[in-house]
């Protein structure tokens, strides 16, 4: 029984670390690089930034590849931790993560294409204005893709939250937070696709719900590991 608790604790810590590590390249690419490059509503400035900060832009692309790989590892660590609660739900959680990986790769291809157009690698016959337009088109496809992908960011959190809620060794409240975060991201995509007029309003809250959803579990896994007594009783 003690062995089992120790193993559980170890898996929880590993999961916590992976979670934290996954957040780093993800945040770097989606928040830092994006904020340096994209000037909302100003195509010329955005394109200028891409060319001036070309290396930064490239690191943003790489950071998403790394995120995709770390994300798979995170899901498999969480699977090890939670499969004892409900195996088919744990598998569903992993499946919702796995399908995101090729999506991330494809979305990033559009960003590379955008850069290549601007650098004159392709579409050489076009006028500068048209090149800018097409480069923006591919940048925007990347944006649309990132926002649509959020439905999957949310979906995997729902079985994850249910597993945590039922686990008996992680506080139920943290499971509930995850589910709220998950629903938030699903609503984000839903609004973006169907009701674009409300998107800027809704997305403010979904970013908040995303943070409420995932920060507690990361901190808890890192700091507390798992509740020792309870898991002893459960086993």
């Amino acid at each position, binding site marked *: 029984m003690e062995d089992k608790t120790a193993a559980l604790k170890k898996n929880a810590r590993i999961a916590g670390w992976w979670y934290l590590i996954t957040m780093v390249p993800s945040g770097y690419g989606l928040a830092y690089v994006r904020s340096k490059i994209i000037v909302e509503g100003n195509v010329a400035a955005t394109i200028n930034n891409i060319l001036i900060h070309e290396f930064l832009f490239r690191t943003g692309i790489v950071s998403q590849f790394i995120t995709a790989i770390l994300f798979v590892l995170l899901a498999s660590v969480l699977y090890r931790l939670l499969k004892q609660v409900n195996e*088919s739900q744990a598998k569903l959680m992993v499946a919702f993560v796995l399908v995101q990986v090729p999506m991330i790769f494809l979305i990033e291809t559009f960003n590379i294409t955008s850069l290549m157009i601007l650098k004159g690698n392709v579409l050489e016959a076009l006028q500068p204005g048209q090149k800018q337009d097409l480069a923006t088109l591919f940048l*925007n*496809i990347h944006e649309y893709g990132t926002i649509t992908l959020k439905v999957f960011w949310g979906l995997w959190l729902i079985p994850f939250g249910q597993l945590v809620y039922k686990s008996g060794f992680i506080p139920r409240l943290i499971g509930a937070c995850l589910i709220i975060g998950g629903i938030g991201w699903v609503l984000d995509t839903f609004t973006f696709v169907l009701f674009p007029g409300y998107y800027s309003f809704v997305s403010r809250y979904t970013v908040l719900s995303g943070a409420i959803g995932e920060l507690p579990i990361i901190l808890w896994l890192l700091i507390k590991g798992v509740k020792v007594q309870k898991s002893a009783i459960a086993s």
Partner: protein
Amino acid sequence: MEKGPKKNSMEQHINSLKKNARVAGLWYLLLVIVGIFGLLYVQSQIIVDGNAAATTKNMLVHEFLFRAGIFSSVTGNFIFLLLVLALYRLLKEVNGPQAKFMVVLVLVQVSIGFVLDLFNFTSLMILKGDVLKSLTPAQKQDFAMLFLKFHDYGIAILEVYWGIWLVPLGILVYKSKFIPRIIGVLLIAGGIAYMSNSFTFLLFPAFEQFVSKFIVIASLGEIVVMLWLLIKGVKSQAYKPGTIAEYL
């Protein structure tokens, strides 16, 4: 003394099979509804074959419908995942590796569907003037149609995968003993029909019109298995003492 618990566990097993079958049937039903809405209804309202002007006009006039079609496709994608996992729970006892193979063949197509939805969305954004602002209206229409076509070509190729996962599913159903064998045969036939459709599109486009008439066969197996899972669940009479021993 011994018979009691054995019988109980047998009943429990049948009940859990039945429950799994119903869950799978329900996901299948949802997938069919979403598919009919997105791929048949919305398409029929928006797309005017060979008429780019009318098609792009429809997209702008019925913008919400077009968006709903995209959203239904995104939804269908993850319902597909839920469906195949429910089918896995139901059929893994028939043959574990084959059931896993079936799941993998679905997992790989979810992201493809996602990218195709993205092309449709981009097409709308071009028409709405969100991107490619310097183009003339006719050029915009051209680019919008290009992305719509990307989506269509993609779907035509994706049909290989719509077909191929039905083959392990059909084999599992055939061997299951708790779903009629004929449904397994229909599923395999459906799988082959989808794949033929896709190969004809790629290799012999001249025959596409002819082959696509058989697409009815493709969906027949799927509709039948969905109805069976929803209405009948699993055959309980199949559990004769001899066969039950294999399952427990």
